[in-house]
């Protein structure tokens, strides 16, 4: 895998990253709403999945996203001390810290995973988080290394390996 940043090459390909964002309902989702009401323009590569709280997010959601073909993910919730549910974000912070470090150890570029605290009033910060994540992942290029792990026969009944068309034998 070559996960080094190569801005020029990647951009020239017209590669547009796919980024999944897991956000909490109370702070970041509302902050993203605010970005909308404030008409703050941002990159269109991010797709939001709304959850009640960052405490609800299992790190496996992120693994699952990569597995399904995401090039990057964003996890965002309430700032420390602001959690709607008091402490969900603190638990999430620990879980993601461990996950973040483990993924780095396994060889995933941490720039593919953006963690942020965005409050309901930080529409502009949400825009910045989105644009920065998109720029980072765009520079890193598609997450081919992960997609290469998919079984060759995934989703398509194409001949694989030693298999040949019926008429050939």
């Amino acid at each position, binding site marked *: 895998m070559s996960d080094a940043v190569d801005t020029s090459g990647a951009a020239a390909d017209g590669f547009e990253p796919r980024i999944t964002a897991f956000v909490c309902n109370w702070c970041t989702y509302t902050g993203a709403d605010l970005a909308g009401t404030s008409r703050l323009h941002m990159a*269109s590569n991010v797709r939001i999945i709304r959850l009640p709280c960052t405490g609800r997010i299992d790190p496996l959601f992120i693994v699952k996203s990569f597995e399904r073909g995401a090039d990057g993910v964003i996890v965002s919730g309430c700032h420390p001390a602001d959690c709607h549910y008091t402490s969900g974000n603190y638990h999430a912070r620990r879980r993601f810290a461990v996950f973040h470090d483990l993924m780095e150890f396994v060889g995933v570029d941490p720039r593919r995973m953006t963690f942020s605290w965005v409050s309901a009033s930080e529409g502009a910060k949400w825009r910045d988080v989105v644009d920065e994540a998109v720029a980072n992942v765009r520079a890193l290029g598609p997450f081919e290394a992960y997609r290469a792990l998919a079984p060759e026969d995934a989703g398509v009944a194409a001949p694989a390996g030693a298999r040949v068309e019926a008429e050939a034998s």
Partner: protein
Amino acid sequence: MSRIGVFICHCGENIGRTVDCEAVTEALKDHPGVAFTEDYKYMCSDPGQQLVKKAIEDNDLTGVVVAACSPHMHEKTFRRACDQAGLNKYMCEMANIREHCSWIHEDRGEATEKAVDITRTIVEKVKHNQPLESIHIPVTKRALVIGGGIAGIQAALDIADGGHEVVLVEKEASIGGHMSQLSETFPTLDCSQCILTPRMVEAYQHPNIKLHTWSEVEKVDGYIGNFTVKIRKKARSVNEDLCNGCGDCQEACPAKRIPSEFEAGLGNRTAIYVPFPQAVPNIPVLDRQNCTLFKGRRKGLAKDACGKCKEACLKDAIDYDAEDTFIEEEIGAIVVATGFQLYSIGREQPEGLKGYGEYGYGEVPDVIDGLQFERLASASGPTAGAILRPSDGKEPKTVVFVHCVGSRDSEKGISYCSKICCMYNAKHAMLYKHKVHDGRAVAFYMDIRAAGKGYDEFSRRAIEEDGAEYIRGRVSRIFRDGDVVKVWGYDTLSQEQVVIDADMVVLATAMRPQDGVRELAQKLSVSTDEHGFINEAHPKLRPVETNTAGVFVAGACQAPRDIPDAVAMASATGAKVLSLFSADELEREPAVAIVNENTCIGCMNCAKVCAYGAIEQREICTVDGHVCGHVAYVNPGVCQGCGTCQAVCLSKSVELQTFTDEQIFSEINALCYWE
């Protein structure tokens, strides 16, 4: 198989301008499981809603996706519409293609593509939605108020006046709290006792208030609307039903030199005592620690060493063998109003705090705290209102008032401002000057914080009219030098050191939460801040609620508060409780966690992360009733639906309804392959 209806809203031009709504409609037509698609100018309008309802009926839809604005805006609207059309309202979700799409993108192609993705994702989610019913919880319409200070009294009265029973628990022998100790109150200088006593009596006599003094909350079980509270009635040694408050026992008691708590140590009391003359109830309590009889019993004397009070009591109300008793109350809501205590500058401090060595650790008798000054100034106090210094009873001619002792001193462990000291210091200076006309009142302050109606005017009056000398600067050292108390200060405005030979020094010591608040908070599953004050649910919008539903907070146990603040908070909790009691049942969203008992192994990691104490351990039994293990159980009345338990469950044995793993996985699956 799912039959989903997808409704795309143009929101006038708001969505339509950047998103090609027809294209989105077209794209969703072919989507697996979609049975109906339609776009419309204003989906939230009445005709728009009619369109949804009709489509549900005509097409036998099993789910509805409205692609429009944020669910925060109209989710309720469309769910209601579905409900009216006979579709379970939780089968309806919104795809946010306005705030999260049309308003933040310019390129029509990109925006349209993204709108399709967003809508598809929600369609995939709705495929896995389950019809849910709201949760109904019965409500016991009785309130518990913990703490009988002004906040507790006010809350109890408001609830009781609203027609509901209140159980008021006070750990001291009388209600009244700190306010009963005060002389006059700022900013009006009206007599504290005069305004408080009627309230105390009203609370005592109110038919809806059940008062337990000399009592503490032992245990709290249950949840909003359904608490069971165990109250410890500490052995008073005086039968409350028999006692007529005549005071003969006090007269008879030989132990007369016990420092009085009410007088802040400036006066004495007997071992059997009524804390103060206006106490409510006017029933004495026997202080076993200092009682001659009990001292003797502790030493193991065969014969009781005293018994004078019992002899003196004509009603035979004294019972030396009384023991603590327990009562259980069924409660629907709880108000915590345990108040405050003052920081002491002494050498011995609770963990996290330090004392003032530079002020002699409080060993100089003429250095007193604000509450002691209140007693000195009080007409009912030990000096009958004359300002006399403790060491020799002389009238002090120079009194130094020191602000911010403990407060705003992070080195001593208290970083916060105690809020009321600036005001009561001004009051003290005034009261002193009113009583000792030739006296000199010097106040060392850092900032004057007198924000409040009439507050700044009040503190200015102390300086301008009553001639208090205000010096801006903190005091470095206080020590006794012969007959005087030396105060080393600095005047940061005139830039010089100031040394004052004072006759008496009054320290405005910080307000701290009462001892035992952390333990109480634990019993109630509410959290406390680093200093031990009880945390409100939201600092701005839910200031009198806690993070445990049904538990409210009033007064200085939440943060330093003055009387008007405490009373306002108390009335606010009263309103909260009354609104909770206004219906027989509580209706809650079914977004709660459910445990799969078949796979749960009872490791209780979920309970450890639950901020609401909603998860308990439950035994599970085989068909023949034999206990074979334990599992977690989520109390739907307490669960707030954050889902942290679900994420922490290793075997995925908890599911948060409305945000199940299957729903989220479907969304992820739909999102990433969006070509």
